[in-house]
């Protein structure tokens, strides 16, 4: 299957690249993940930092480590820990490749960097509550950390021949995270009772805000159901509250754009978690059936056929209606009912691969059954599961939206695309809710469909053009 030293992934990628639209769409998918992870950078009602006579504070960071929901917590952790690490290690890796540092060392370096950052950031983030820290101490701390970082980097650089300029560049993302998060580690005073936007208008201090200065949960009862581009008129009570609502507001005066941005997180979570549940189950069951064959295969195949006939949407609807709306239940039910298709495809693939010589060779070398399944056959039998991932994400996103419209979706203040649609069903004249939330769903579905089709064509060119 693999000729001329190319791995399977490389072949697939080569095939995939032939489809230019699909490659461009991959960028859009990346943008979706970017929006999901960087949502607080785009929209938040907290200033990055706020200076008042009492000292400097970092409300945005505090909001980041004290999110409203578990999903936000996960994404914020990714934002705080992994995003800067990715930036740094990408820069360093490129440089290390130039300096021809061995791959194993490079990976080791990147992992070390991650460990270091987690060791510093995570404990701080967990205990952090509030901070009002004087400027001099803040600067001192920053300088100390940057100093340590530069020192360590110079040591590494001298050893592997990495240019100091690159090191300096690479330390910026780390420092950006580490400095304020360290500063957060000194909790003092009440934070949550403060409204920084109000304080700024009252002249008690000033801060720097995100591009969209509205949070997804921030209500404004004077601005209920305002159409796109409308702004608040009259003398402002809170800073930047006359900024236009680009996509209008909803039934509690919340900014729709901000909610759509944060809704990306819910959609991505549901899609990815549900699909990973059923891909895992499906691949496990399918590979056992396909590898062992015989009676096991007969039993599992019948079970697959039985579960395949389950009215899954009806089941989800019943469960969610009876147990109570929760995205975790939605995810688990989609996960538990979706696996048979994957299992069937994986089983077929295993039946095919089992007869190929390399499996006999592996067995002759004394490999155990699990080793043959996981190390030898599975990597070659994963393509149907991979193709199912984008389509599965699409299905999960649609299911979430549908359930929300039926009133069984996420609980009200949580921002999700489906809940925006639900608000729209109460009054269709508020067209901006339907149009913007609907088009977010539509664009996501289209993009993932394109990627899925392209992936299928790339993995199995014979299937090209069939639906």
């Amino acid at each position, binding site marked *: 299957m693999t000729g001329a030293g190319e791995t399977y992934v490389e072949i697939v990628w080569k095939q995939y690249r032939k489809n230019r639209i699909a490659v461009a769409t991959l960028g859009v998918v990346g943008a979706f993940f970017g929006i999901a992870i960087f949502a607080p950078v785009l929209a938040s009602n907290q200033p990055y930092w706020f200076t008042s006579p009492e000292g400097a504070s970092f409300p945005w960071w505090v909001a980041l480590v004290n999110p409203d929901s578990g999903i936000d917590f996960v994404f914020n952790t990714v934002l705080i820990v992994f995003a800067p690490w990715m930036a740094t290690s990408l820069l360093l890796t490129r440089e290390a490749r130039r300096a021809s540092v061995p791959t194993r060392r490079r990976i080791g370096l990147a992992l070390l960097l991650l460990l270091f950052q987690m060791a510093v950031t995570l404990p701080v983030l967990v205990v952090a509550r509030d901070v009002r820290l004087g400027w001099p101490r803040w600067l001192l701390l920053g300088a100390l950390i940057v100093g340590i970082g530069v020192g360590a980097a110079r040591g590494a650089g001298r050893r592997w021949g990495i240019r100091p300029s690159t090191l300096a560049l690479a330390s910026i993302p780390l420092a950006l995270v580490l400095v304020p998060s360290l500063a957060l580690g000194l909790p003092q005073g009440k934070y949550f009772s403060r409204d920084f936007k109000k304080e700024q208008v009252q002249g008690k201090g000033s801060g720097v805000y995100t591009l969209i200065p509205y949070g997804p949960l921030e209500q404004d009862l004077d601005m209920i159901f305002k159409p796109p581009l409308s702004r608040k008129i009259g003398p402002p009570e809170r800073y930047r509250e006359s900024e236009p609502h680009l996509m209008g507001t909803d039934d509690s005066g919340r900014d729709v754009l901000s909610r759509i941005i944060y809704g990306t997180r819910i959609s991505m979570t549901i899609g990815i978690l549900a699909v990973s549940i059923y891909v895992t189950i499906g691949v496990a069951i399918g590979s056992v059936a396909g590898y062992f064959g015989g009676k096991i295969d007969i039993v599992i195949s019948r079970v697959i056929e039985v579960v395949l006939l389950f009215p899954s949407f009806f089941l989800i609807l019943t469960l969610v209606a009876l*147990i109570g709306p929760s995205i975790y239940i939605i995810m688990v039910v989609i996960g538990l009912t979706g696996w048979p298709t994957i299992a069937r495809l994986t089983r077929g693939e295993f039946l095919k691969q089992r007869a190929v010589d390399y499996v006999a060779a592996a067995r002759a070398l004394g490999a155990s059954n699990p080793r043959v399944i996981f190390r030898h056959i599975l990597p070659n039998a994963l393509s149907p599961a991979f193709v199912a991932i984008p389509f599965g994400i699409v299905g999960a996103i649609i299911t979430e939206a549908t359930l929300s419209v039926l009133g069984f979706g996420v609980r009200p203040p949580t921002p999700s695309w489906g809940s925006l649609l639900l608000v729209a069903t109460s009054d269709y004249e508020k067209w901006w809710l339907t149009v913007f939330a609907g088009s977010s769903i539509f664009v996501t579905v289209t993009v993932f469909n394109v990627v899925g089709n392209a992936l299928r064509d790339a993995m199995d060119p014979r299937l090209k053009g069939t639906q």
Partner: protein
Amino acid sequence: MRAYIIRRLLLMIPTLFGVTLVTFSVMKMAPGDPLKEQLAQGGAQSESGSTHEAYIHQRRQWKLDKPSFLNGRWFHDYSSQARKSALLYGLADGDLEKLLDRLAEEVRAGRPSDTLDFVRSLGIEGVDQRLLDPEARKGLAPIVRIAVQIKVEDEMGEHGVRSLGAELDEKDLALQIGAIRCLLLCTLGDPFRYTYSKEPKSEETAGVVATWKIWWDRNHDQFKPVAPERLQELKATLRTLSAESSRSKVIEAMDGFTPEDVPFFAEVLFSGSTLSEKVVASTALFYKVGRVLKADVKLSDKAPLVASVAANWKAFIATHGSEYSPPIPAKCLYFFTDTQYANSLVKLLTFDFGRSMVKPYDPVGPKMFQAVLVSAPIMLLSEALVYLFAVPLGVLCAVHRGKWQDRSTSLVLFVFNSFPSVVLGMLLLTFFCFGTFFKFFPMYGIHAENYESFPFVRELVDYLNHIFLPLVCYSLTSLAGLAMFARSSMLDVLNQDFVRTARAKGLQERSVILKHSMRNALIPVLTLFASFIPALLGGSVIIEYLFGIPGMGRLSYDSIQAKDYNMVMAITYLDAIIVMLSILLTDLLYVFVDPRISFQKSEGGA
């Protein structure tokens, strides 16, 4: 071929079993009791007592008081529980308070007796604290009584009748009173029925006959045999009356009988006569003898009365006791069959879906049929539309494979395919129904308000106007799949030799495509129709919800929301059957139209 069909039909059994099991478990997992909620809504008007009785009756009728899956209660020994329940339920208020005082002492001393253990097992919140606190203890008596009542009604039910019957022999008056009251809770007073209900059923016979039998056994020596000539007369009257359908006529005729005629009617009731004769006989007995047996006692009743009521119960248990203590094989059978799940499974298997559990308790079957009558025409129209557009588009794409026609059509279809029906439906509603942009179509329902007065043509136009947007919504979202299927099917045909031969013969391209290729390509496309049958009957929940169509989708949504167990079970079950049959039908049609495919070789493949 036959083996394949048999295999698929056999596969239906575990599937149906699994589907019903899962649906049932899901509904059992759900918090809340739909019956109770229903009655709570209607409870404001009626008295609380009768509401409760109705609730228990309904529960028993739907077997909701049984365990969900396995019933071990027939093996359980209820004697000590029966004794304790009878004790607590039979004590007058003052005595019960005294007993509670004693229990409080036990709690303080830390030496719990059986009675205290039983009270603790009743599930009253913070029972120990309440017992210890003298203020709270005063209010505890009624709570204990209600807890006992719930326990007896829900757990013991008919299983406890034998054990309670044994308590009737006790000397203690309170215990006797309690046992009688508990028996009444267990059986809902069913054993002591004097006459039939308004619409007589044969199930009622046992209760009626048993009641009169007990009375007759005690009192038959007070009556002389009926004179022969009177007997002839009575027989004739009975014959005419039993043919009479009007109940009031029967009651009017009661004036013609005397108390001396009672032995005749007792004979009719006890011997194997027809149901209508028994109805007349029991009515006559009731009018000439009266309410002869008492089944209930008050807490304050005196010993002689209690003894006579207890004698009634003892007589009943002596004659009918075997029903309440079945033999071992029957117990083993009941372990699996006397459960909620088995009950609903049997009903589903016999297609007896019962009544909806939501007011006004309509029968499930006709209600579903009504809903199907609404959804099916819309779905049928939309399928027709899909075929009308998808097949030509698919053929067009295949003929111009890779050219701009193919690419642009595929692109448009792809875009439509990416519209989830919820988004498309809401966009259509926003843009075409609510005047913000346009107001072309009505926003809700399938008829105008007064459509019945319209002439036929106008009614049809009105109907089409209402269902236009749902149709668009249904069709656009399923267009792409069929079109792509038609395209690949056409491509397969176009690559075959006979098409080349046709072209080589010099036939016109038009004729090659329309006559030779398309006919062959259409076969698999048309057989696919069978796979649309489930959607045809089931409708779509979200589209029917958005557009306010009272079809199957809407019905399933409503029944899920109202926790209408019977309806949900019936819908899931029928849905599964229809899906399986349609898959079978699709496969069979496929083989039927294309003899090259056979099931013998396809073993192992999907």
